[in-house]
């Protein structure tokens, strides 16, 4: 019943018959999801609250593994392998697939150390290399101009929008292949939101992006593909322009015209 387009370009991730069940839940929160995710493009996930957007997003970097008792079924293909396999190296996976959260999550350390954190975890100790890569990441995240002269300051002194861009800088510093955004602007003012949206569009040159959003305008503004989820199922995946103008599914139509949700 779902209408999933067949993406012709190369795919960064390919979800097949994926199911996810939270610990102790009677039924799966995600049901038989099949979803290709195009490389170097932005895929938005929309849908009413509780439909499973966050749950799906957190499956891509296996965040659910932090809490025992959750279970996966099906397949998520990344770099030619199924990342749901028991032997998957989660540390490696998470450096390849980065994540930005709903609220800014600046670590309790300086701005520099925040951005250098992932690099140091990978064993980079060389001071000049660290400095160069931190600067580059901050520039790419469009925040260098604001913080370049106070890298030693505590990161928690920054504004919400700045902190969120700092988190993006931190995530791209380790040069991931995929970036996951979970409603990255829901805690921000309109101006900061605009900044983040612009940044996300710029970033797709280098990474593949999946962004969960509650805001349909945002999905329409930034994404190339949009997936509509409802009650744990992916109802429709299509090119953004087409999906918002001529949805194939009745449910999608009802949702984007504001009949429910």
């Amino acid at each position, binding site marked *: 019943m779902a209408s999933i387009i067949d993406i012709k370009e190369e795919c960064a991730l390919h979800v097949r018959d994926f199911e996810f069940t939270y610990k102790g839940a009677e039924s799966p929160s995600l049901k038989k999801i099949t979803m290709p995710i195009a490389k170097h493009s932005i895929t938005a996930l929309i849908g009413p609250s509780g439909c499973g957007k966050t749950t799906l997003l957190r499956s891509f970097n296996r965040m659910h593994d932090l809490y025992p008792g959750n279970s996966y079924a099906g397949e998520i293909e990344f770099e030619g392998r199924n990342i749901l396999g028991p032997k998957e190296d989660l*540390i*490696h996976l998470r450096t390849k697939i980065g994540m930005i959260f709903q609220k800014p999550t600046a670590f309790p350390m300086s701005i520099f150390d925040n951005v250098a954190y992932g690099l140091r975890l*990978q064993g*980079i100790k060389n001071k000049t290399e660290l400095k160069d890569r931190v600067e580059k990441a901050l520039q790419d995240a469009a925040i260098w101009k604001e913080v370049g002269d106070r890298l030693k300051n505590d990161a928690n002194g920054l504004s919400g929008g700045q902190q969120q861009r700092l988190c993006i800088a931190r995530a791209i510093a380790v040069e991931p292949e995929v970036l996951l955004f979970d409603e990255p602007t829901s805690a921000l003012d309109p101006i900061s939101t605009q900044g983040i949206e612009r940044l996300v569009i710029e970033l797709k040159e280098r990474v593949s992006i999946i962004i969960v959003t509650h805001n349909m305008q945002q999905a329409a503004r930034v994404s190339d593909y949009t997936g509509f989820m409802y009650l744990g199922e992916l109802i429709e995946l299509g090119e953004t322009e087409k999906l918002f103008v001529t949805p194939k599914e009745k449910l999608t139509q009802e949702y984007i015209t504001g009949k429910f949700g």
Partner: protein
Amino acid sequence: MTAVQKRVVINKIALALSTISALIALGFLFWILGVLVMKGVSALNWNIFIFEGAPPGYDESGLKHALVGQAILIGMATAIGVPVGILAGTYLSEYGKNSKLAHTIRDISDIMMSAPSIVIGAFVYAVVVMPMGHFSAWAGAIALGIIMIPIILRTTDDMLQLVPGELREAAFALGAPKYKVILSVVYRGAKAGILTGVLLGIARVGGETAPLLFTSFNDNFFTTNLNEAMPSLTVTMFNYATSPYEDWQQLGWAAAFILSMFILGLNILGRVILFAGKKRK
């Protein structure tokens, strides 16, 4: 070894060390509990509840005097500590709120909660025992009551603040005076929480020995005279355990076991009440 592999190894070591420290802690605590249960249970018999203290070597010796004394002391302490604590907590939550005075009282009371209990004993010795000229149940109960006040105050304050403001407003809107609102609406809403606080407060002072050493002192015989020294489980346990007599030491362990079960029981009951209260909401 790459940096990442090194981190993985360090991670394993650090987690193993934490787990080992948890096991060490658990080991010691089970050792103590094990001793308490083994020694205590083997010393338990009906005589303990039937007979009062006797010189070492007597078969007919028990802890009746200490059990009753303990009950009297705790009862009196509760009668002092609970009303004062609840009223004071009520003032903080319902009248004082965020005023400077209220905060000062909260701070001082918080410090009092962790202050050395033996010092309270010394204070009560000076203001009760010295003027009376002898040890008494009154002195012991006052010392325990003072220790109890901050505990009850704190939980009452916290629990009353959890009662939603709309409930109060609804009652005020019906024209009820403030005291009535507090007595009939606020207290009712915080019932489970306050009860838990009282139980935990009783549990806390029930295990106190130090403040009784020179207030209610001790007695090896049954008494209900509040103007005299009064035996308590804790001090009896202390005296018996440090005595050189085998049978007294046994009674000491029996007292330790009974008291611990009482205190653990109160703690568990308190948690259950709080939990049940939360669930209903």
